[in-house]
Every structure is written in structure tokens, then in C-alpha cells.
């Protein structure tokens, strides 16, 4: 008999499935069965091939077991740089599920959903105040879609002035979504090199600025966690050449409540509610990517916009200069509720404290990790710090190994190998959610790993050792992609075979 441990790989739904099991029952049908032929038989299927058949208990156990194979912010520090993995307040989950919000159908006439519209209106107002912008659209479903909406507005603005222009300038340290969004908006991308401080070189920008340049997409603070101190001059250079300044607000957590993009000369920027405003990351979404604009871009906002008239909140569709719609309905409303709840809970003073603590925590980590870990850019850090594996490389231990070993110490690794301008980057963003004790534990783990790298590099190179599963063959996965389960060939339907390495069932 093989003992069953509490944490081991879980079979797939399809393998657990047994013919004839059910997890759901409908009430008796209270209308007549439709007549034969109400749907032409050639449209009908016999069954959904391979669809699982399970009892409720089995479904619950399956997903509960899967959940135990995940690390999560509620288990400990999750310092993914530029992802802002902060605590997700539980009250936000409660308010998003309030029946009035959760059951509101998006096709309801406006006067039946004033509560939802009011919330969106208030959130827009709050975001305008926090960011110093004139208007916000809440429609984009995620940061990348916000970027796309933002650059499309820029294009519409230039087109209305007679020339859509050709180029979007993007620093070499930018997120990959920036160039991808620019290209989707019909632009050519020109990469701007960073200077020795890791920032935009303003004289270089001046040299590249011409009437083909539509906009500069600038992440501030940038992906090194460094504030672009010359941002006002950058805005002046762009504006003087007829261009606009887009700010990628992914890193707004660094100065939320303390400074505002709108005051810096930014014309348009997105922000990620799942970063700065604590909505859950959900294992990879849903996010939300509202976009703020100055009044010059207001006519181009996605349709519909929200307006208040005579005490009622309305959706405005008649906006002829709008870039159109980015998605169906009005955006990820459930995320709007959570973000608004976060802003309410914090207030102006709390938001300031978010940025202050996030920056203090990052600097605390930096101070204690350097010089054990190489600091490629020594410019002042705001909310995140980027170190590299240069000191550990000599003993054959690389960033990937350090990241994997961190798991054995109970931490999620930082973002690795990004930004691209730092070889072997480890991008650490602790956020304001961590106590000094948690930071110390992380720092001590990092320092221990450096010692281990010198004493027993093999231990680090073969890590992790304590996770439910060891390093996976990503090369094999990419060479011969298996992207879905298929029934084992030649096996008749019935009890699924237990494949090697999957859950061993305790046999009596």
C-alpha cells in the first residue's frame, strides 16, 4: 500500500470522472418539453465528448487540493517587481458580492442601475483627484488594454490635427506591452536607450523628437524603480514638438497620494486597479486598466462615458470623436467596486501611507541586500529595487537558481530577467503590505542563498527541493506542445487509468 501524502499532484478532472456521476440537479421543468424538431437535428450533438462526470464532493476536493499547490499573497511575501502584489482586503470581496452589484444586469435601463453608475462616477472622480487628470475611462479590462485605448486616443488626437504621425518612442526598460500596444495602434516603435542612471536621456530625446513622433510612453517610476526626475522637461520637449506624453502607471504605488501624473505634464496614462488599488490578481486576472486623460483628449475617450445630470448618472453614447468601444458593456465593474472600497478605506492620508511604506520597505530591502547582491544602477529607489546575479555568477549560480531556492525558504521569487537592460535581473517589490519581520525573513533568506551558492552551489542549482513539484521541463513543453487532455488511446471509456507520477490511490 502506497501511503498518500497531504500534498501531491492531483489527477485531472477528466481522469477523476466516472460515468453516471452528477454534481447538479435542476428543478423539475415547469413548462412543456419543446416539440421535436424545434431545433433541426443537424444542429444537435449527441454528447460533449470527454466532458467530465463528477459528484459535488469530488469537484470540491479537486479544486481544494489544487489550491494547496499554489503560493499566494495571503501565505507570505510575493515580491514580483512591477506587479505590486499587495494584500487584498477581505471587505472588498464582500462588497463586490453585494446582491445589488453582483446581480445587476448590464442591459438594465439606466434608471434601474443608478447604484452601479453612481459607483463608477465616484470612482472616476476619485481617480481624477488622485492622478490630477481631467477624465477617466473605466472601460479597459486590464493595463494592456488601457495602453491600447490610450495610444488610440493619441492617434485620434493627432489625426484630427491633420497628421496621425508615425512613431511611438519607448525606453528600452519598458514593459513588453508598451511596444505591442503601440504596434496594435498602427505605430512604428522607436526604442530610446536609458542613460547611466537608468533614466531617459533628455538630450537623446531632443535629438529624436520630430513631427513624426506621436507620443513617448514612459513608465514612471521606471522598471528599475527610479523616478524620472526630468519628467517635466521630457513633457516640454514632447509638447514643443507637438507630441504627447503617455505614462504607464503600473508603478503608481511608488507615489500615490504624494504626487500626481497630471502635475508632471502627463497627457494620458493608464493605471492598474489590481496593482495600486488592491484588487486581487486572481492567478492572472481579471484586472482593470482605467485610463486618465487631460481635457485635450477627452473627446476621444471610449464610448460610453459617464455623466451626471439633474442628480442622475447617465451613460453617454453620442460621442462622435470617440475611438469607439474597447470591450462589451462598461468595464470590469466588479473590480471598480473593490478599488473604490480600497480608496474609501484608505482616504488621502492612507494612500500617502501606502506609497511611503512601499518605498521605505523597498529601500530597507535594498540597503540590506547590497553589496551581497550587485546593484546595477545606484540611482535612488522608490517602490522596487533591481539587483542582479553578477556576484553569484562566478560560482555558477544564476538568477533562476536564486529564485527557485527562495521557494524552499517559503517566499515567492521576485520578477526575474526583467527589465531587459539588466543582465540577470532580480526585480524586488515588497509593497506596503509587509511587516519588518517578513522583510527580514526574506532578506535573511537571500543572504543565506548567497552563502549556499558559495558553499554548496549544487544545492542552489538543483532547487527547489521542498515544493510539490520540482523544476519542470519547459523546453520539452515548448518543443512538443500538449495543450489539452485527450483520452488515452485504445482505452475503452470507464475508470480512467492512473498515469505514472499522478496521485496514487491508497489501495486496501
Amino acid at each position, binding site marked *: 500500500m502506497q501511503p498518500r501524502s497531504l500534498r501531491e499532484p492531483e489527477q485531472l478532472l477528466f481522469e477523476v470522472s466516472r460515468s453516471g456521476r452528477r454534481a447538479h440537479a435542476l428543478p423539475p421543468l415547469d413548462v412543456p418539453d419543446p416539440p421535436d424538431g424545434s431545433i433541426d437535428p443537424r444542429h444537435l450533438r449527441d454528447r460533449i465528448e470527454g466532458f467530465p462526470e463528477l459528484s459535488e464532493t469530488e469537484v470540491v476536493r479537486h479544486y481544494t487540493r489544487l489550491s494547496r499547490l499554489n503560493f499566494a499573497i495571503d501565505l507570505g511575501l510575493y515580491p514580483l517587481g512591477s506587479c505590486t502584489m499587495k494584500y487584498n482586503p477581505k471587505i472588498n470581496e464582500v462588497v463586490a458580492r453585494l446582491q445589488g452589484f453582483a446581480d445587476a444586469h448590464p442591459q438594465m435601463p439606466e434608471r434601474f442601475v443608478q447604484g452601479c453608475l453612481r459607483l463608477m462616477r465616484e470612482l472616476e472622480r476619485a481617480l481624477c483627484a488622485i492622478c490630477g487628470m481631467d477624465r477617466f475611462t473605466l472601460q479597459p479590462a486590464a493595463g494592456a488594454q488601457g495602453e491600447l485605448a490610450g495610444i488610440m486616443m493619441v492617434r485620434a488626437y493627432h489625426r484630427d490635427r491633420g497628421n496621425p504621425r508615425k512613431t511611438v518612442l519607448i525606453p528600452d526598460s519598458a514593459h513588453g506591452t508598451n511596444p505591442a500596444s503601440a504596434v496594435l495602434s498602427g505605430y512604428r516603435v522607436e526604442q530610446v536607450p536609458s542613460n547611466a542612471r537608468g533614466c531617459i536621456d533628455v538630450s537623446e530625446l531632443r535629438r529624436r523628437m520630430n513631427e513624426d513622433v506621436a507620443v513617448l510612453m514612459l513608465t514612471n517610476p521606471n522598471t528599475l524603480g527610479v523616478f524620472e526626475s526630468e519628467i517635466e522637461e521630457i513633457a516640454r520637449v514632447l509638447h514643443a514638438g507637438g507630441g504627447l506624453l503617455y505614462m504607464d502607471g503600473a508603478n503608481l504605488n511608488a507615489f500615490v497620494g504624494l504626487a500626481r501624473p497630471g502635475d508632471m505634464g502627463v497627457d494620458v496614462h493608464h493605471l492598474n486597479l489590481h496593482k495600486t488599488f488592491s484588487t486581487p490578481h486572481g492567478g492572472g486576472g481579471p484586472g482593470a486598466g482605467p485610463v486618465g486623460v487631460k481635457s485635450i483628449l477627452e473627446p476621444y475617450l471610449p464610448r460610453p462615458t459617464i455623466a451626471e445630470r439633474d442628480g442622475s448618472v447617465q451613460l453617454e453614447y453620442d460621442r462622435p470623436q470617440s475611438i469607439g468601444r474597447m470591450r462589451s458593456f462598461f468595464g470590469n465593474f466588479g473590480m471598480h467596486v473593490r478599488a473604490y472600497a480600497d480608496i474609501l478605506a484608505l482616504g488621502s492620508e492612507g494612500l500617502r501611507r501606502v506609497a511611503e511604506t512601499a518605498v521605505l520597505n523597498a529601500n530597507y530591502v535594498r540597503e540590506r541586500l547590497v553589496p551581497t547582491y550587485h546593484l546595477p544602477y545606484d540611482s535612488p529607489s522608490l517602490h522596487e529595487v533591481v539587483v542582479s546575479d553578477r556576484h553569484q555568477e562566478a560560482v555558477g549560480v544564476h538568477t533562476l537558481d536564486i529564485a527557485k531556492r527562495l521557494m524552499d525558504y517559503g517566499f515567492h521569487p521576485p520578477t526575474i530577467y526583467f527589465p531587459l537592460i539588466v543582465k540577470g535581473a532580480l526585480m524586488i517589490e515588497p509593497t506596503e503590505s509587509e511587516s519588518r519581520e517578513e522583510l527580514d525573513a526574506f532578506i535573511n533568506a537571500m543572504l543565506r542563498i548567497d552563502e549556499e551558492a558559495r558553499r554548496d552551489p549544487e544545492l542552489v542549482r538543483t532547487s527547489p527541493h521542498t515544493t510539490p513539484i520540482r523544476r519542470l521541463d519547459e523546453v520539452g513543453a515548448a518543443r512538443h506542445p500538449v495543450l489539452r487532455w485527450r483520452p488515452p488511446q485504445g482505452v475503452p471509456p470507464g475508470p480512467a487509468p492512473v498515469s505514472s*507520477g499522478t496521485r496514487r490511490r491508497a489501495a486496501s
Partner: protein
Amino acid sequence: MGDAHRYIPASEADRRAMLRAIGRRSIDELFASIPANLRVRGDLEIPGPRSEMELLTDLKTMAAGNRPIEAGDQFLGGGAYRHYIPSVVDHLIGRTEFYSSYTPYQPEISQGTLQAIFEYQTLICQLTELDLSNASMYDGASALAEAVLMAERVKKRGRVVVADAVHPEYLEVVRTYLSSMEISLEVFGHGEDGKGDPAMARRALGEGASALVVQHPNFFGCLEEVEAFAAEARTAGAALIVVVTEPVALGLLKGPGAQGADIVVGEAQSFGVPLSFGGPYLGFLAARQPYLRSIPGRLVGETRDLEGRRGYVLTLSTREQHIRRDKATSNICTNEGLCAMQASIFMAILGREGLRDLARHNHAKAVYARERIGGASGCRIVHDAPMFNEFVVRLPIDAQEAVDSLGQSGIMPGIPLSRYFEGRDRDLLVCATEINPRTAIDRLVDALGGLG
């Protein structure tokens, strides 16, 4: 600075100690790189801070600003569907290990999310009868836009043809996504019976196109002749994209892949995702094998670990923006992970028989409602093509007025088509699901019959 905030562990004493430990005199010093003139003076004009008790009261008050109508007395569809959500779904996605984790960049400690996505991909393939599914998109409309761009990348004809019975908001999103591209879009019409007309599609395809797009069941609720469109697309060398906004229908209907679709996209909100005033929802995107390298968004693949155990990883990432940057297949980064999990759990709970039963119930309620409303005084069923759970009624009065008037008495009878189509002032799109009891349908019939 006042007291510590409940979400932020660092107390004043902690802050002082940490500053001391790093040799800084003040928090302000850490922000020296932000020019002084850019610093906010005073407080922002936003509400808060609120205690949890106050916050809950505020939000409850706001939610109460909506005028509730019993779900059973609503007959709204049009891209968002009222279905019962088994309690298991919310219970499981409420597990913090799922919702407070992120994109599974580190597979060793993310197998829960990765395996759940792999299962989601499989379920979507089974449902649509296609080879590939990605890990989800933002919503059905943006999934369609991405599918059109994908077809264009492969076929490079610079032209797409779309049925006018595709959800108007989806069409608008496609127009937005194409607006900066050199891709033209042609719309073709539908017949009296409410179905798209393959002959019109043929004329619109003309010299050729990258994609032919139809919705099934279409926006008016009618089932489309997918096989006929597949034949037209094949002749023209175009990819057939089938949009499904109500995937419960696929409990009864053949997967569009089995009817010749090359790409199937749609909205999976029906599968356990709350209506939540339009989002978050989730788009699905499935395709035939040859689209493997052109597919946008994340993909999870099966592999083995060092000890030979089966496991899952994000794979084929070179298509994506973080590697290919300006040459990526899409700019999408985050998908709708948690919604995909909601949908998977829903499909697992319903299972093979349950989804079929659910589809049968939906169809039965809609057939009953359509027949009864068709017999109500002054009401006429506009299209006679077979439908699934939605249909269009022509009322004796303006549909917007009817909605206003019935709304007063606690019935939300449907969507006035004038919201989307000029000149269809008296047409109402009615949807019946398992949520609508017979008694509520009967009340709706009486109310509509009393309009004329």
C-alpha cells in the same frame, strides 16, 4: 503621521526603526528624486478614510441605489445571461490560494492555477470541438477582435466580412481594434427569418477575405447555418470565425468546430460568472491546430519535472509581448484567470449531463415564452428561424416605452432593439432561462398582451 492603517503593518515605531537601520533621517528623504514642486500639498479631494463598518454601510447604500427586479421577472440577455450559479463555484474561487496569487510565472508553486487552466483549455476544446484554446481573454468582444487579427496574420487578405447579426457591441469593438490597421471590414445582412444569409456572405467575400464572422446563436437568438457559412469561407479562402455569446447553447448544439469553424470565440460569463454589471467576464478563444503559433494570450502545456512527475507550465511564450514586444501576436498580458476558473468549476459541476439538461431547460422556457407571447394581443414574433433561448418580439408600442411601463410593475421584459438598431423601435429582444419560472413567463405574457 497618525495611527497605523489596518492594511499596512508598519507602525510609527517600525518606521523609525527601519529608517534608522538604513541611515535615513526621514521618509521625505526617500522621495528626494521627486522634484519638490511636483509633491502634493495637503489632502487629495477624495472620501475616506473609513472604518470597515462605515465602508460596508456606504457601499450597501450605494448598491441599494439600484432598483431591484427579481431575477425571475427579468428577461434580459443580449450578451449577458442570468443563470443559477451553484454555491460551490463562489466557495472555491473564494479560496485565497486562487484569488490572491498571480500569473503562474513560477510553476513549482503555481500548479493549482496551471492545472486549472490546462483543464479549462481542455473543456473549451471539448465544448467547441476544436484543437486549441488559450487561457482566456478579457471578454467575448475583445476575443472576437483578437480572433479577427489572428485570422489576418495567417491569411493576410486585409479584409474581413462580418454578419450584421453579430452582437453590435462586439462589432463595435472589432471596428475599434481595426481602426488603426489597414484592414477593411464589410458587414452583410440577414434574411426575414433572422438568419444570416450565406448568399449575401458570398457576395461580400467577393475576391476573398481573411475571415468570415457569424454569431451562433446570433444576436436575435436565431441559430445560424454554420455549415453553409463554412462552405462559403472555404471557397473564399477565409477563416470561419464563429462567435458564441451564450455557451449554454453548446450543451445541445454541435460544437462549431464540428460544423467547419476554424476559430470559435465567445463569452463564457454564462458559466458561473456573476452578471456584475458587465464585468469581469471572460472571453474564450479556440482554434484549429494550424493557428498554434498565431494564437494570442497565454497557453498552458503539460510537461514533466526533474523526477518525472507530470506538471504544467506556461508555454510557447515567444508569441507574447514580454518576449516578442512589438512583433507579438497581441498586447494582452493578464487574462481573466479567476473567471476562467469560475467557468471551469461551473462546467465541472454541471458536467456532461448537467450542461445538456441546463441547455434543454433554457430552450424549453424560451420556446414556451415565444409561443405564448406570439399569441398575446398585438405581439408578433419577428423571426421564424429556430432559436435557443432568445427571440425578438414586435410590440404594439415603442419597446422603450414598454420597458418603462412594465419596469414600474417589477417586470423587465427585454432589451429594446432601438438601443442598437435604428428603425427597430417596436422590437424587443426577450431571453428566457432556467431562472424564469413559468408563472413569471405567464405574467410577462399578460403584461405584454395588455400593452396594445
